[in-house]
């Protein structure tokens, strides 16, 4: 019984943790390299979620502006596999535009200006989506087949018995993407510049490197990962305009505090720690789940203000 609960917590925690990690990587690396705290990061998750829904299936509308002008349903119905390609590409493009037109003009402005403009953007995205599609909550859609493989239905696991098969696949897919990101940061010249830049971007420039180019790429990559997280979320959690803040920005920010600014490994570690914490608390005392997340982050902040893997303070 205890073992059964523990395994279930672990599995749920891995799913939640994978999403947190995908979100945290972008937020953390963008803060680390550009000293830019992007409060619109959650909006990218939101965009990824809705874009995912749009690419995957036909969704019927019952509220919002589009419905009021006679649109009953939207969506391309391309399926999950197509969305796995299209959503990150879309997120990447949105990230490039966001860096160019929102973030870059604010790099040299005070932090409060950066926070205000990105938070404003997050609200605009949320409200536009709400206005167009209504504030309804949409149900998740898990794929049943992916690239010809059956991923739907239950699977028989030892000890806990039947478990939705897709939940295991989604962890695998997320881990694959996280691993790929880790390799890009650790093994490529681009990653080297990013890592050096999180520490001392002026010194990187003094070695002849135009770091601005890496900035745009970092931003776009972070956005693509956040959008991808949104797509993963759509496959097992409900979708509504608030998820950008509640399920993405706040957890990502806590991941950042735990893992430390600029550290990919920190974001991955922080993501899974918080994911498993949330899953555990949801089973044991669900009313405390959110509070405990904050408590973990506050504890780290108290004893290691730079985060477990960071090299400089997150909150300065």
């Amino acid at each position, binding site marked *: 019984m205890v073992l059964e609960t523990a395994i279930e917590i672990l599995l749920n925690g891995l799913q939640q943790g994978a999403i947190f990690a995908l979100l945290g990587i972008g937020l953390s690396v963008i803060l680390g390299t550009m000293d830019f705290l992007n409060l619109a990061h959650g909006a990218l998750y939101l965009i990824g979620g809705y874009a995912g829904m749009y690419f995957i299936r036909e969704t019927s509308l019952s509220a919002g502006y589009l419905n009021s002008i006679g649109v009953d349903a939207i969506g391309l119905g391309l399926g999950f596999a197509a969305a796995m390609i299209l959503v990150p590409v879309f997120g990447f493009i949105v990230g490039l535009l966001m860096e160019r037109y929102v973030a870059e003009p604010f790099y040299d402005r005070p932090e409060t200006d950066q926070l205000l403009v990105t938070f404003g953007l997050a609200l605009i995205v949320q409200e536009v989506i709400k206005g167009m599609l209504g504030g309804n909550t949409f149900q998740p859609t898990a794929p049943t087949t992916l690239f010809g493989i059956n991923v739907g239905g239950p699977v028989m696991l030892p000890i806990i018995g039947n478990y939705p098969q897709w939940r295991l696949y989604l962890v695998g897919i997320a881990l694959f993407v996280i691993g790929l990101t880790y390799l890009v940061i650790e093994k490529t010249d681009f990653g080297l510049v990013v890592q050096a830049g*999180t520490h001392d971007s002026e010194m990187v420039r003094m070695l002849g490197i135009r770091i601005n180019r890496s900035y745009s790429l970092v931003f776009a990559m972070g956005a693509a990962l956040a959008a991808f997280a949104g797509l993963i979320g759509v496959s097992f959690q409900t979708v509504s305009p608030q998820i950008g803040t509640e399920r993405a920005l706040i957890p990502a920010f806590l991941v950042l505090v735990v893992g430390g600014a600029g550290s990919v490994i920190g974001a991955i570690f922080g993501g899974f720690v918080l994911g498993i914490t949330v899953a555990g608390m949801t089973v044991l005392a669900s009313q405390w789940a959110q509070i405990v997340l904050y408590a973990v982050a506050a504890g780290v902040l108290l004893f290691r203000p730079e985060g477990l893997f960071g090299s400089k303070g997150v909150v300065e």
Partner: protein
Amino acid sequence: MSLLEVDRIDAYYGQSHILRDLSLEIEDGEVCALLGRNGAGKTTTLRCVAGATPPDVRSGEIRFDGDEVVGRETEDVSISGIGLVPEERRIFPNLTVEENLHLAEVSRNSSNLIGRNLSQVSETRPLREIYDAFPRLDDRQNQMAGTLSGGEQQMLAIARALRQNPRLLMLDEPYEGLAPQIIEDVEDAIRRISEEGTTVLLVEQNAAAAIKIAERCYIVDQGEIVYEGPSEELRADEETRQRYLGV
């Protein structure tokens, strides 16, 4: 034409006027020292030459190999042949020795160079030559730079700048905080660099240390050049040293 000409610059941090009508010239191939007390404006001068901001150069010109530096991005100035070993070293502690040295190579990637208005970009200096010159780094290629000793970090900072194969190498108080034995190693390294044809601008507070390797010295005081002459002359001129350097 001198390799570097700093021509009557005035530089500011915000409202504070730091460098006043400051001029200096560095000849191709020489070792020149810039001396001055704490806060005299030595680091500020190097930052101006490196094209770093702040400070803000509001008047005057800086020409490197005939090309204007003021107003260019610091990465463009650097890649045109100016290497800096900064105060505090500023190695990347989260990267290995090898990775620190690899960044100069990355700066030559076409994805970095394309679309930038650069005249000539030299090849980097081969890694093997760098390790031959700094055997202690050779032994520690895969060590995290943050775990190196102070002396090793200084060697790495110099090696990193040399890897860029600069025509002008600027060193900002390279002996700071080092034991006498290590200071000798750094001195040897600078001599070797110079013998291989690289022009050197050495910033120091300590006249004796600078005179040992520089042929010519400038003294800056409160943002103005107050002395210029051969090292031999400064060695003999106790009054000037006393007045501007307090030694």
